[in-house]
Structures are given as C-alpha cells and as structure tokens.
C-alpha cells in the first residue's frame, strides 16, 4: 500500500486542504454579509481613514506637533489651522492626529494583553472542564464584581504613570468577558466529533488546544476583540482625563479632552473636536463589532 506520508496527509497537520476550502468560503460568506451592513461598513472605512490619517497625516502637515506660536495663542478654526490652535498656538489638527497614535496604540496593546490572558484562561478552563473549570469560572465571576477601575487608579498613582504599566493594567482588567466567551465555545466544541477523533489518535492536550480548538473559536475572538478595543480606549481616556494616564509631553485624546474641558468656556473648539473624533472612533468600533457579530453569526454565551 502506497500511503504517502507527506505532511498534508498527516491528520496531525491540523488543517487539511478540505478544511481550508471550507474555511475560506465561510470567511467569504461573512465578508458578503458584512459588506451589506452599511453601518458596519461605515465604521470600518472610518477606522481605516482615521488610522491612516493619524499615522501619516502629521508628516504632511506644515505644522509640527510641538511647534509653539505664542503670538498667535488660541485661535478659532481657520484656513491656516483647520481645527484651530490651543492656548500655546499649537495646531490642533496635528495634535489630535498625533494624540490618536497614542490612543489607538494604547488601545491595541492593551487589547492584545487582554486577548492573550482571556483566550488562554478561557481555553484552559473550557478544555479541562469539571472542577478546574468550575473553580476558574468562579474566580471570573467574583472578579466581575470587583471595582477594578479603582485598582488601576491606585496602580497608576503609586507606581508612576508610565505607558507600559498603563496598558498592562488596562489589559489585566478587560480580559474577563473574552475568557467567558472562549470557554463557552470550547465547551461546545469539545463535544464535536473531530475533537474526539483527535483525542482518539492520542494527540497531546496542548496540541489539541492550539491546533484544533483555537482556530475554531477565531470568529468569536475576532468579534470580541473588536468590541474590547473601544472599552480599553475608553478606560485609557478616563484615566488620562483624571490626569492618571498618558503624561506630557505625550498626549492622547483623553488628555486633549481634559485640556479642552478646562478651557471650553473661551475656546470651545479645544473640547468639541477631540471629543467628536474620540466619540466617532468608539462609534465606528462598536458598529464594526456588532456587524462582525452578525456576519460571523456569533452568539455569546452570556451577553
């Protein structure tokens, strides 16, 4: 018998060509459904435009982010400064774009931390099941009820306000929902036949988790990652607003909103523009997340 043992024929290779084809058509279906959802599409396009503007925009501006023009001071939006200038005469459009880099960057890094903790925790809990699962989920339940924002505030005050601590602390708070979702998915996956087959073939637990289960929970993970980013950005801005987040000379949208709120009585544009951009970003992320949820047909276990 000439059974070829090329890697693609090995069952343990994880994805066979068959699965691959099926997989791609699932994603194509989802893409079509997403493209029909106008709000989600609007959200996605807005995010791409904002992202590009924040990363590349400042390079094309004739003003720099720190360029002070005390003679000009705070000026209302005009042809030279589209979104006006702050009290030091700095161009606000550039400041918002550069602040966006920090806000989005912190949002993404903190989400990555939350994602890693949540997925690993949820996968382990769901995979082992039984007493371990009960204990691990009990811990999550208890943590849900704790005033975590308070601890993030304490951490930031006591251990210096550095940006790495900021996103690690935020990420360490926002992983709970992700853990629950992943665990629920894994529990239902465990009963599927192809997992039983993997067990029957004697594959190791680690291999089953990482090669067979996690690829299959990718849909829900993508959806809740999209929905975690706005939550994380909100917490960052909340802390920055209290003066506990990003510190000068760096600046984020939360910092700009805080400065704007202090000076809004005379210079409304300092509050209105950063506030609008920030809200628009949250809005887009939420709609994109909702749209993805519908497109990938993800229902949460507890939502």
């Amino acid at each position, binding site marked *: 018998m000439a059974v070829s043992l090329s890697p693609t024929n090995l069952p343990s290779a994880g994805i066979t060509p068959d699965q691959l084809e099926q997989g791609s058509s699932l994603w194509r279906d989802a893409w079509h459904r997403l493209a029909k959802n106008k709000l989600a599409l609007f959200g996605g396009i807005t995010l791409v435009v904002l992202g590009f503007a924040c990363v590349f925009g400042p390079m094309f501006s004739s003003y720099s982010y720190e360029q002070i023009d005390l003679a000009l001071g705070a000026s209302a939006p005009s042809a030279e400064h589209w979104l006006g200038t702050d009290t030091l005469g700095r161009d606000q459009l550039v400041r918002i774009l550069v602040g966006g880099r920090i806000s989005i960057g912190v949002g993404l890094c903190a989400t990555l931390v939350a994602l890693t903790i949540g997925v690993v925790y949820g996968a382990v809990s769901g995979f082992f099941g039984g007493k371990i699962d009960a204990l691990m989920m009990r811990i999550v339940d*208890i943590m*849900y*009820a*704790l*005033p975590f*924002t*308070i*601890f993030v*505030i*304490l951490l930031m*005050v*006591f*251990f210096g306000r550095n940006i790495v601590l900021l996103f690690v602390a935020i990420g360490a708070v926002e992983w709970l929902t992700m853990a629950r979702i992943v665990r629920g998915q894994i529990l239902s996956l465990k009963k599927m036949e192809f997992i039983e087959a993997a067990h029957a073939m004697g594959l190791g637990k680690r291999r089953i988790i990482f090669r067979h289960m996690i690829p299959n929970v990718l849909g829900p993970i993508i959806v809740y990652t999209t929905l975690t980013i*706005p939550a994380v950005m*909100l917490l960052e*801005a*909340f802390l920055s*607003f*209290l003066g506990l987040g990003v510190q000068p000379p760096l600046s984020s949208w*939360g910092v700009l*909103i*805080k400065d*704007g*709120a202090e000076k*809004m*009585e005379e210079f*409304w544009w300092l*509050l*209105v523009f950063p*506030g609008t951009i*920030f*809200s628009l970003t*949250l*809005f887009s992320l*939420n*709609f994109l997340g909702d749209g993805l949820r519908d497109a990938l047909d993800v229902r949460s276990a507890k939502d």
Partner: protein
Amino acid sequence: MFSFIFRRLLQIIVVLWVIITATFFMIRFVPGGPFTAEKAVTPEILRNLEAHYGLNKPLWQQYTDYMGSLILRGDLGPSFKYASRTVNEIIADKLPVSIELGALSLGVALVVGLILGVIAAVKRNTVFDYLASSVAMMGICVPTFVLGPLLVLFFAIQLRWFNASGWYTPADRVLPALTLGLVYAAYVARLTRGGMLEVLNQDYIRTARAKGASEIRVIFRHGLRGGLLPVVSFLGPAIAGILTGSFVIETIFQIPGLGREFVQSAFNRDYTLVLGTVILYATLIVTLNLIVDIVQVWLNPKLKFE
C-alpha cells in the same frame, strides 16, 4: 435560598479580606510616603509623625492593628493628610453626596432607558425604533467626560439655565445626574428592547391578547416583565460603573463627594483614606451585587439559587 445567601456572604467576606490585605500591602510598598510631599521635614519631626500614626511599628503589627480596629470598631483610622480628622468622619461627610448623585443617575438610567426601550420594542422597525436606538447608541459612544463638558458648554454657559459647577440647589443636580445616567440609560434601553422583543413573540403573550387583555396591559404587565430581566442582571455592572464614573463627574462639576475625595487622596498618598475608601467601595459593590442576584432569581422563575 438561605444556604445560597449564607455561602455568598462567606465568599464576600473572603473577597473583602483579600482586597483589604492586598491594598494594605500594596500602598505600603510603594516609594514615597504621605509625608514626603510636604516641604522638607526634619528627620526628627518625621520620626514623631511616624510614631504618632504607628508607622514605626513592624509592618505585620500595623496590619494586625488596622484589621483589629476595623473589625472590632469599624474604625478606619486617622487621615494622614487632614490632621485631626478620621477617615470615618471624612467618609460620613462625603458619602451622602455621592450616594445622592448615584441614586439620581440610576433613576435617570432606568426611567429614560426603560421608556426608550419599550417604545423601540413596541414600535419595532418604525422611525421611533430607529430614533430610540440611535439615541441609545449615542449614549454608549459619547463618554461621560465628553458629554459632561458639552452639556455644561451648552446648557450652563450658552443658555445659562444651570450653574456650571457646584452642589447647592436642586437645579445643580440636573446636569451631573443626566451626564452619568444617560450612558447607562443607553444600555438599559438596548437590553429592554431586546428582552421585550423576545418575550412579545411568545405564546403566553398571544394567549393574553386572545383573552382580550388590552394592549397596554399586555405590554406593561406581561411584556415589560420579560424586558426587565436582562436589565436587572445589568444593574450590578451599572452600579459599579456609576460609582467609578462619579470620580470623573464629581471632578467635572466640582461636587464635594467621595469620588473626588478618593482621587485626591490617591494623589496625596493619604494611605488610610485610600484604603478606607477602597474598602467601602468594594463592600458596597459586592453587597449590591448579591442583592441584584437575589432579585434576579426572585423575578425569574426559570432561575434557581445555586
């Protein structure tokens, strides 16, 4: 049910103990003490200050002293920053303001949220539904620290209907409570709409209609009960959110509540005040969560105390 409550109470005690202990040691291991911010004090004065507050004792003894007086007398110790005032006095002074703000905000959240949610569910897929849903989405995406200043800008500075800050007249309550409440009203509206839509399609609603029950009765007596269930389970997170949200609201509107005091005390490194406030907030949140859980089972016959 009683064994459920008993077990949860035990769990609450363990959780609170962990929180108190963790916070106690965390704030003592950080660089810089409550007296380092002051203009340079001589070592002698510093020693006297530390002796006065018991900071010269070994750490474990400070811990047992603190826990002892907390458990026996509910005593949270003296404040480090406000000489001659105890943490208990400060909390008794500031907490009522925060509770009033929180209760009003929760009221706004429930009233506005339920009304919008019911309208959206009953007038499903009409202009009312879209309008209610958009308002709800706005509430979710515009954070309190943007909404608050914007409301002040418009209603206080432009129209001069309200004061921009302060906490004196009943009118001073309007803007802060709206700001803090509207975000949660948005979530409540979304949950109510979803919950009611699910219920309104069920058989017993058709039965009620067939019996000739009026539409109002069907909606409020049968439909709303179903719509309320997801709202009740959201109350736990909402209460926690309103408590922490009040830090920002009290800062924006300069309200003399415990939220602003907490942030200030953290900046001041007023250890005992920080610790006392954390203990209070944690106790409040876990207790309210227990109550929410009990109400939830009581409202929904499908759930059981486990």
